[in-house]
């Protein structure tokens, strides 16, 4: 059996509320994401989608179970080790874009170079910006861009190191329909080119290679 890009086995996460009762966000959850596949986590708000993505990204540790990304058990790495691993292997796209407000579109796309440098990054960033239709926006600050443009900059940033995996948390949540379709199209294209995409959304109209429906506790997985 070949290595999946993401392999979750029996993962549970319970938040210890500081002033309230504990919240079980995920319970005994398992999932495989193969390379070249576009996997959508679908479910209502509060069902644990973000929690799941943060754990796959190594930003959150599960209480139980194992998270492997490209065969690497994330729990076996130190915090700095996880950061380095994340820098090379995983790209993030968020609902709120999380662009750095004082950097131009181009510099935002180049921000991952702060963690891992490399030759030809600038050229790749510029190509990526052009491919996403932002060439006339590359020297603009995020504040001067529309939501759709901002999310495309964020997407270009996620793609800079050509990661094996893209984690997208509600990437279309703040976008108009047209921009949403454009972003979804780019993500799907990335998966088609061999990268794995794991996207969380509460939208019900998204077509995916694998659709995982999360409900409080229970999980239904559809393969198309």
């Amino acid at each position, binding site marked *: 059996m070949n290595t999946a890009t993401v392999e979750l086995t029996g993962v549970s996460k319970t938040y210890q509320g500081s002033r309230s009762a504990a919240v079980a966000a995920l319970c005994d959850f398992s999932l495989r994401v193969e390379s070249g596949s576009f996997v959508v986590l679908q479910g209502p708000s509060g069902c644990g989608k*973000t929690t799941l993505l943060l754990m796959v990204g190594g*930003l959150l540790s599960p209480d139980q179970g194992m998270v492997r990304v490209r065969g690497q058990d994330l729990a076996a790495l130190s915090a700095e080790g996880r950061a380095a691993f994340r820098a090379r292997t995983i790209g993030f796209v968020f609902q709120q874009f*999380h662009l*750095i407000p004082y950097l131009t579109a181009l*510099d935002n796309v180049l*921000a*991952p*170079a*702060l963690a891992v440098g490399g030759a030809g990054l600038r050229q790749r960033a510029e190509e990526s910006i052009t491919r996403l239709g932002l060439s006339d926006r590359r020297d603009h600050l995020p504040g001067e861009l529309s939501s759709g443009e901002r999310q495309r900059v964020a997407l270009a940033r996620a793609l800079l190191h050509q990661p094996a995996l893209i984690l997208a948390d509600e990437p279309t949540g703040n976008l108009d329909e047209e921009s949403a379709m454009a972003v979804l199209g780019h993500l799907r294209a990335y998966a088609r080119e061999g990268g794995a995409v794991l996207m969380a959304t509460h939208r019900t109209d998204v077509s995916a290679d694998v659709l995982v429906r999360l409900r409080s506790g229970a999980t239904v997985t559809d393969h198309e």
Partner: protein
Amino acid sequence: MTIWRLITEEIRFRRLGFASGVLSILVATGCLIAAMTLLRTHDTRAERMLAERERATREEMERLEDDYRRIMRDLGHNVLVIHQDQDLSELQALGHPRLTMPEAYAHRLGLHGSKTLNHLLPVLQHRATWPERGVEILLSGTPGQIPVVGRERFLAADGMTYRNPIIRALPPGMVRIGHSLARRFDLKPGDTTTLNGEDLRVEQVLPQEGSIADIAVWVDLDRAQSWLGLEGKINGILGLECICRVDALGVVDKDVRSILPDVQVLEFSSRVTARALARQRAGQAHAKALEAEAAHQETMRRERRLFAAVLVPLAVAVALIWIFMLTLGNVRERRGEIGILRALGVGQGAIMMVFLLKAVLMGGIGAVLGLVAGIVVTGLWGGIPPDDPEFWPHIQPGLVMAALLIAPALCALAAWLPAVRAAAEDPAVVLRDWS
């Protein structure tokens, strides 16, 4: 993309915050440099001022001394050293001592450095007849003042003659005429008269004194000695401007007789002593005024030091607290950015570095500008203009180096806790908060 670029772009984006940080360090460094440098320029100015006053006082005292010396010359002489066996009523009756002493006595007194007599004038005086005029005169001879060891300050460059003599030596061929004689024979300075067959020029007519001095005829000592047949002899040594205290005579007597055992010392006018006392008092008053001024300067100096000792640490403390608050606010403002950088794989050390380097930059730029400001302030208010060669030495290189190195270090220290806090931000929490 580098951390450095991230920092500079952020500074450009949030200029105001950065500028306020730089300003606080500028003020603190400026205060430090200006305070330390101003203290030094004030010291220099006070020193200069005191030196100037001292010089002025000294000059004034010298002028005063000259005045008194002249007054005393006009009044008469302080002490007269005569032969031990000279009878005083005889002295009164004759108007001069009858008994003589070797001329060498005067030189001995000078060579032994009399402690109490500043000026020594050997004289030989004797009643005689002016053969050409047929009148009685007081023939008086003097070689002029002779040097006293220890009083070289009164001497001219040759070390022999007096710079400012109380009684000038008479050049050979010159004569000084008492008031009555001059009146009687209508002699004026510049006239020529004959005495004992020699033609002499009148150098000066002495002012009226109402005493036997009014019939005095002064010539150089050698001439008087040979006319009187008293070669190598004198009959008095005038001790002029003795170091006068009220009880001076006893002291002078002891001093003189320790050198010349067979003489006696007579006091002259008590008015002279009174004047000398007054002069001494004036000197003391001047010295006291100087002391008071010095004390005043010292007080001002202490006050300024105290002020600097409070102001400088206060400015530094305020600046560091400001840097701390500024960095803390910056960290809060940039939580989302920190979260995303961590998600992108930027390590905690690099996150800390972002905030520490920014603080160091504030400190460095602030220190350089503060240094310039401090120097400008000193130039404006230090009282020593920058084109004065003494201006630049007041700026201590050690202090400058210390300020330039310590300011960034202290800023890094002030930013340390906020930077640690930034590095400790949990990206999972931050990214959730922000989405």
